[in-house]
């Protein structure tokens, strides 16, 4: 660890005059390895841990190209090529499951984003500081509860005997009979969307509110001088001001379009609503863990991962082309 070595490195960097990226100046040599041995010691074991738990399982993907039987050894497995994938896309259940996943994700994405931006805009207009803070603290409280608790709360609120939703709708004379919300498939997507808004809207607001706060106040002053009213300021100053945040979050979320969040669907779904509640993840659990059809379930998982990666890179590339903020 001598200063001379460090100096040499700096000199090397300067003389090379390559791009400003400092990493390039440090070449992979025994000298650098020795110099950075503590950094390596502090990070490489964790990276290996990560590889074991996140990348080694990819080996399991070969199951999707076999007719995997746990009792047989690797050499004895029957190879079937893309048959599992063909079966998957010919299967009505899988198509339905795919539809449900995309529909619920889309609902969550649109509802989640619009309500978060909406609440952030309105919270921003609250002038009484402590009131604003109290509302905010309360609004993101449900984010910290598990979906098990949330699902219990949703089930209670929608219950037929005494659920608050039915009680209010009855009192307002909007319905004559209590509705059995959780027994009918046509309500399921809406329930999932509404539950997600209830649980996550406050959390989503944090980022947008921070983005709004960082908008240059002089822009608002200029808009006022030009005679802009409150809603015009929102339209022409605030919304463009949070566009970058919006784009980044959109890219991040697009990659998760096949993760509709399966917990709520798993916990609230039942035999009556299965045509609308089953998602890819539940399909994988059912075929894989419960029924032991590992190959088919793995194929469904691979499909999901590949779509996610394509979507993220696609969205990222599009954002780049449009001159917007990027994630990667």
């Amino acid at each position, binding site marked *: 660890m001598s200063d001379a070595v460090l100096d040499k490195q700096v000199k090397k960097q300067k003389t090379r005059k390559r791009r400003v990226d*400092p990493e390039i100046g440090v070449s992979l040599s025994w000298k650098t390895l020795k110099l950075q041995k503590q950094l390596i010691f502090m990070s490489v074991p964790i990276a290996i841990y990560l590889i074991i738990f996140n990348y080694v399982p990819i080996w399991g993907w070969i199951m999707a190209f076999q007719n995997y039987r746990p009792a047989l050894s690797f050499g004895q497995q029957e190879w079937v090529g893309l048959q599992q994938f063909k079966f998957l896309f010919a299967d009505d259940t899988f198509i339905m499951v795919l539809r449900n996943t995309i529909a619920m994700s889309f609902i969550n994405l649109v509802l989640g984003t619009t309500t978060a931006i909406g609440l952030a805009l309105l919270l921003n207009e609250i002038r009484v500081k402590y009131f604003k803070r109290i509302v905010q603290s309360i609004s993101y409280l449900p984010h910290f509860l598990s979906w098990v608790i949330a699902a219990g709360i949703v089930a209670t609120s929608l219950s037929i005997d005494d659920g608050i939703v039915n009680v209010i709708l009855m009192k307002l004379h909007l319905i004559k009979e209590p509705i059995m919300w959780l027994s009918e498939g046509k309500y399921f997507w809406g329930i999932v969307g509404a539950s997600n808004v209830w649980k996550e809207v406050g959390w989503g607001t944090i980022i947008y509110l921070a983005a709004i706060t960082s908008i240059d106040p002089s822009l608002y002053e200029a808009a006022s001088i030009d005679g802009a009213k409150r809603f015009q300021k929102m339209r022409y100053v605030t919304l463009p001001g949070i566009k970058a945040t919006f784009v980044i979050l959109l890219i991040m979320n697009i990659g998760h379009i096949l993760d509709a969040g399966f917990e709520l669907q798993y916990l609230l779904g039942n035999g009556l609503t299965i045509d609308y509640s089953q998602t890819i993840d539940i399909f994988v659990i059912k075929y894989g863990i419960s029924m032991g059809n590992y190959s088919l379930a793995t194929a469904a998982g691979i499909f999901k991962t590949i779509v*996610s990666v394509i979507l993220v890179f696609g969205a990222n590339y599009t954002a780049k082309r449009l001159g917007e903020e990027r994630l990667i």
Partner: protein
Amino acid sequence: MKAVTKGSGRVEPAVFHTINTLFMLFVVATTLYPFLHTIAVSFNDGSDTLAGGIYLWPRHWTMENYRAVFISGTIYHAAFISVTRTVISTVVGVFLTTMLAYTLAQPQYIFRKKIGLLFILTMYFNAGLIPNYFLIKNMGLLHNFLVYVLPGLVSAFNLIIMRTYIRGLPFSLTESAKIDGAGDFRIFWKIIFPLCTPVLATVALFIAVGSWNAWFDTFLYASSDIKLSTLQYEMMKLLGSTMSTNNDPSMLAGGQNNQVQALVTPASIRSAITIVTAVPILFVYPFLQKYFVVGLNLGSVKE
């Protein structure tokens, strides 16, 4: 005419602020009502609750629901497992995340980009449930307490938050310590780690909440082992039993006698467990929230 326009100019903001305030109160009410209702039900006589009409206040006060929850030894053990896994995951996770983030924040570190990319990719790239299951199985982690701690110690999201924060610290600190002959480990432990308090609190909260709220790992990897059951998993089982069409009272948390059975119902037990499970989180988060708002924005906006 003049007076009207002048008047409306002042009335419009007042109307807006009134409506906006009312809307905020509506948001608060919809968020809080379910909790207050659950608390009310948890303190209300179970069979009385069935009659309906409990909203914000119990009608027949009783501690019987909580007694029924705590009468079975299962819940104590589940709580113990939940607390243990949360504490271990948080302490080890925070330490490893910060240490890794420190190395990735060093601009000259040769593996900086490679390791960084490896982590970022995990946010979207996942081998999938079945391959992961086989990995856990092959590592002998099925029905093993370690399965709660090992797989998710360092997450990409927390890492990004940490790294952004450490990058924001003055670089001269590290540099001058280096000139004084300190190694990276010493710099990390003596200088960087103590300076990270706000972001440590953020990441600790995220890990702790994630670990406390997890039920799926129990379901997948340890469901047949009652000794490894967690509070959330017990909740999940109860939810399943109360959601099913026949509310069979014998499916309650075990161990109660006939007299108790008459007083508590699955719904009232579930309310009591919900409160027991939610209280620790509701208790810690007000103390940490000023940190995580900062931390979250650091991680997501700037990256």
